[in-house]
């Protein structure tokens, strides 16, 4: 939204009364101009005493109302005189109803939170998480640069591994599998205990280990060509 200008996110026209006193179609809805002091050639009023003391309505409605009341002859009950106890009980009922609504709201909120935004996956629950990746995202979000660098390293990993001796290749692949398994175990554990600082620290270490190995594979392949 730019300064002084409302720009709706959906790009459509704004509805309702505009800030300039129009209804959006340029029609004046207040019936008076902006300062309320002038209009239709009437005189200006500068003090209350200048107002008319009595204004006679153009039509007297009371006789009709009185006749209608007499016709229906509905007994009018006097307003009950309520004791302080009754007033308090009524007040307590309102408070209790409000509390119930609030408790219901809290319950719904907790239920939605536990089920996650999609309403399917428990994020913090007594039962094991089935979608751990989603759970971990709350605890560890790799930076865009990390994701980009890792993707680049993984993309060329196979070609780089081919340049290594077969036994080294097998060992490196086994180590990468070990790291991957460790990451999954940590993520599963974090799914159960998302705020566990120990697990978060070890998970970050595991991500760093993976990058270290991927980088080492690239360096090793580069050495092979460079010697």
């Amino acid at each position, binding site marked *: 939204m730019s300064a002084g200008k409302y720009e709706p996110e959906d790009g459509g026209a704004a509805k309702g009364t505009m800030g300039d006193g129009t209804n959006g179609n340029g029609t004046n809805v207040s019936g008076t101009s902006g300062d309320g002091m002038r209009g239709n050639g009437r005189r200006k009023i500068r003090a209350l005493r200048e107002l008319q003391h009595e204004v006679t309505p153009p039509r007297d409605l009371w006789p009709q109302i009185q006749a209608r009341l007499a016709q229906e002859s509905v007994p009018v009950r006097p307003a009950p005189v309520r004791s302080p106890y009754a007033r308090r009980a009524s007040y307590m009922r309102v408070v209790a109803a409000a509390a119930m609504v609030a408790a219901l709201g809290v319950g719904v909120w907790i239920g939605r939170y536990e089920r996650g935004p999609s309403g399917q996956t428990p994020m913090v629950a007594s039962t094991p998480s089935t979608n751990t990746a989603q759970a971990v995202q709350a605890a560890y979000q790799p930076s865009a640069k990390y994701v980009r660098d890792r993707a680049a390293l993984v993309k060329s990993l196979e070609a780089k591994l081919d340049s*290594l*001796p077969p036994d080294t290749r097998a060992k490196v692949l086994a180590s990468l599998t070990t790291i991957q398994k460790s990451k999954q175990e940590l993520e599963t*554990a974090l799914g159960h205990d998302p705020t566990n600082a120990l697990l978060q620290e*070890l998970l970050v270490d595991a991500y760093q*280990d993976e990058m270290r*190995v991927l980088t*080492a594979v690239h360096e*090793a392949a580069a*050495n*092979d060509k460079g010697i």
Partner: protein
Amino acid sequence: MTRGSDMRTMVMMLVVVVGWGLARAGDETFERTVAADPHGTVEITNISGRIEVSAWDNPQVQVHAEHAPAGQGNITVDSDHDRVTIKVLVPGASFGRGGTQLFVKVPRESGLEVSAVSADVSTRDVQGPQQLKVVSGEIKADAFQKDVEAKSFSGDVIIQARNPGAHLRLSSISGEIKVEHGAADLEATNVSGDVLLHLDSMHNLRVHTTSSDVVVEGKLLHGGSIDADTVSGEMKLRVIPDKGFDYDISTFSGDIDNCMGAKAESVHRYGPGSRLHGSVGPEGSNDAQIRVKSMSGSVRLCDKP
């Protein structure tokens, strides 16, 4: 055994001997000695075979190569100011050809920068700083007071720390890391290979592994520290206090054991996680620290030999 069978055996042996002789016919040896700065740096690269470096008291670098690749210029020795560079060049090299055995003598205080792909590397008595990198091969080195950095991809890293002031940075991915004797500062990083540190004494020790088993034995010096963490490896620490130490061990699901009689406590009332912390030694003397973290690996700490 029949007469025909004897003949066949003899023919096969003859073929083997002739083949071996033909193969050896292509082998060459290489010798070169150049002047060197006693405190300079020697850089060595080899792609396949072996590199053995030893120290002597001459201000020279001597290179002896066996099974050298045929052809002139495939081993180069260049000397430029305080740096001597030795390279084995194998055009279109592939693995498993036996490679080149390099034997190099360097001034005792020289620095070393060794890089090898499919070759074992060993250094003996070199007292300058060493930087040793091997892709597929074992590293064996003596460490003195200067920094030693050793990285192996899949081979073992074996260090004899011959000075208690040694500074070591060691890493592997799947090979074992072994250190013996003492070190002032030691950092060991591994993924799946074991880490075995049998030290006379240590000052600052940092061990980080993914699934490696770790053994640490030795005296923790006054004011020193041990920081160790693993995801699933087993850790056994037998640390003798110089005066005393504080310890703090945390695991998510691993067991914690000790010989000091302390009892690990649960971190959560109903969930996993346990912690053991306390002190060893007379009160006020425990200025050394041990911190261990593990996810599922078990940890054992003992303060007795």
